């Protein structure tokens, strides 16, 4: 049996009642869940785990991996299985690293610039590549991840080859009119990075939710469901495909630049094909129909593997099995379980 991503309907924020409603507002339950998520991230975790740099680091990773996967989710929403997100995270990482080490650009400018550079590159590459569909698009983007890695490896003085770029400066303080809004991130405490990661993730969630529930989201859905029909009603299919892909690459670039500053280094091997696959897997595991899908998927897998240190050698194997199991038995992801319990997960589908 094949997994037809076109049958999966991102219906972010519309409650999942029988026939998908056009009400794009969050219902009360969703608001509560989102508030709970924010509280856990920003209050409970720092209080409970704030003294454990190790756990904070793990959760920081999970938050930014979620953020990057959220971009992949956006390309899923136009019906493309994107395996290039590792490439754009690498581009963003290198962009941030080069800007800060070579040109002394402060981290707070590097972050958006890295996103923009990734987005522009994504738009340029996406324009021709997005004509491909299904497995052809997946294969091409997969090779793109490898191509960008090789580019970084052979980038000469700019990327410093296999040695990578090290000693990337940490984020500095933000002062406005002499008032320190954010302290600089120097020191061993990962908590500032954790808060920044959470802030990015929440911004990303709100941003993608907004995108997905606006007319743009409906246009994306129309592309996924039938590009010819979308064309026939005057939708510039190529343009909206590129917009979706650029949004995805933007998020990948920002995530990459964050990690570069967080780990203070970046190498060609920082993001490989397996990372691209993982970003997609997080989306699958959580559920392609839900904006929270990639977040659930990423947190679950990242935290689970940290707790199960013993099986880390078998990570690739376990991920592979999980992926197959997920496609066979849970094609709508973990979040679809919750809806089924409410008795409203059927979504009116036959």
């Amino acid at each position, binding site marked *: 049996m094949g997994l037809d991503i*076109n*049958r999966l*309907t991102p219906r972010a924020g519309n409650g999942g009642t029988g*026939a*998908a*409603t*056009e009400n794009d507002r969050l219902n009360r339950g969703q608001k509560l869940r989102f508030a709970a998520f924010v509280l856990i991230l920003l209050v409970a975790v720092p209080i409970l785990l704030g003294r454990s740099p190790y756990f904070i680091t793990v959760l920081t990773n999970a938050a930014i991996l979620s953020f990057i996967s959220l971009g992949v989710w956006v390309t899923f929403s136009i019906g493309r299985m994107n395996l290039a997100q590792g490439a754009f995270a690498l581009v963003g990482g290198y962009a941030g690293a080069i800007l800060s080490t070579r040109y002394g650009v402060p981290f707070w400018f590097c972050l958006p610039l890295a996103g923009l550079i990734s987005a522009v590159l994504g738009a340029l590459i996406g324009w021709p590549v997005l004509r491909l569909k299904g497995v052809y698009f997946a294969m091409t983007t997969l090779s793109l991840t490898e191509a960008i890695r090789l580019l970084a490896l052979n980038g000469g003085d700019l990327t410093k080859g296999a040695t990578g770029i090290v000693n990337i400066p940490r984020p500095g303080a933000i002062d406005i009119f002499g008032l320190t809004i954010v302290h600089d991130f120097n020191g061993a405490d990962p908590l500032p990075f954790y808060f920044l990661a959470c802030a990015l993730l929440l911004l990303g969630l709100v941003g993608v939710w*907004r*995108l997905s529930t*606006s*007319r*743009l989201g*409906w*246009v994306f*859905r*129309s592309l996924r*469901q*039938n590009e*010819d*029909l979308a*064309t*026939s*009603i*005057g*939708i*510039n*299919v190529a343009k909206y495909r590129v*917009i979706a892909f650029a949004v995805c690459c933007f998020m990948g670039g920002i995530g990459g630049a964050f990690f570069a500053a967080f780990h203070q280094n970046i190498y060609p091997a920082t993001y490989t094909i397996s990372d691209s696959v993982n970003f997609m897997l997080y989306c699958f595991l959580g559920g392609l129909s839900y904006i929270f899908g990639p977040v659930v998927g990423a947190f679950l897998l990242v935290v689970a593997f940290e707790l199960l240190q013993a099986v880390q050698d078998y990570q690739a194997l376990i991920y592979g099995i999980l992926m197959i199991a997920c496609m066979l038995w849970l094609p709508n992801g973990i979040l679809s379980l919750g809806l089924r319990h409410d008795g409203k997960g059927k*979504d*009116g*589908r*036959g």
Partner: protein
Amino acid sequence: MAILDVQGLTKRFGGLTAVNNVSFSVEKGAILSVIGPNGAGKSTLFKLISSFVVPTSGRVNYNELTITGLPPHEVARRGVVRTFQETTIFKEMTALQNVIVAHQLRCRASSFGIYFSSAAARADEERFRESAIEILDYLGLSTVKQMLARNLPHGHLRALGIAVAMAAEPKVLLLDEPFSGMNVEETEAAVRLVRGIRDRGVTIVLVEHDMSAVMRISDKIVVLNFGTKIAEGTPVEVQQNEAVIGAYLGQADEEIGH
């Protein structure tokens, strides 16, 4: 005045000439049908007019401007909108959402405006919603507008396909086999519907197999056989045309005739 003028349209796929030097014109406000046996090139002709396929040679003029070579969404923007055979629809949306999203061409708000829900974007959505409800009512779909399209019965899907096209405010509507698979009553209703759309000022070009419906509805008929136009005229003229009778019934055999 001819709103659509097809001039010497030819399409070759490798060695196969699907459409061969076909010319005809459609008067504003008319209903023109393209008929022909299976494989006569009707569908290809449709794709050529709507710019989904680029012709090998020839051109299509719309309001005296050439639209051949424009991207298909641009042709739709100009007012030439096609429908599809069977069930080409946004299956995972409700009927209403299908029609609302099809109002894309009428968007006044920019992409940024849409994203940040500007006043223009909200006004757009309000208008689209009202217009979509009106279109669905008109096409007899008001009772199913909240149903997911994938769950709609066949006849409703066909009407929804037309509703989606109507949302794009066509000046010329290209209908691909609007009556196929319908029983007599359904066809009768569909014929009335198509006439109604024409009476709203939309010029109609349709491809169809159902002869009786075509004869009743058309102002003019173009007959294709093996990609070539073999006849053109009013229903009565076409029915009496030797070449048409030959194409449909096989050549009349002299011996049996006597």
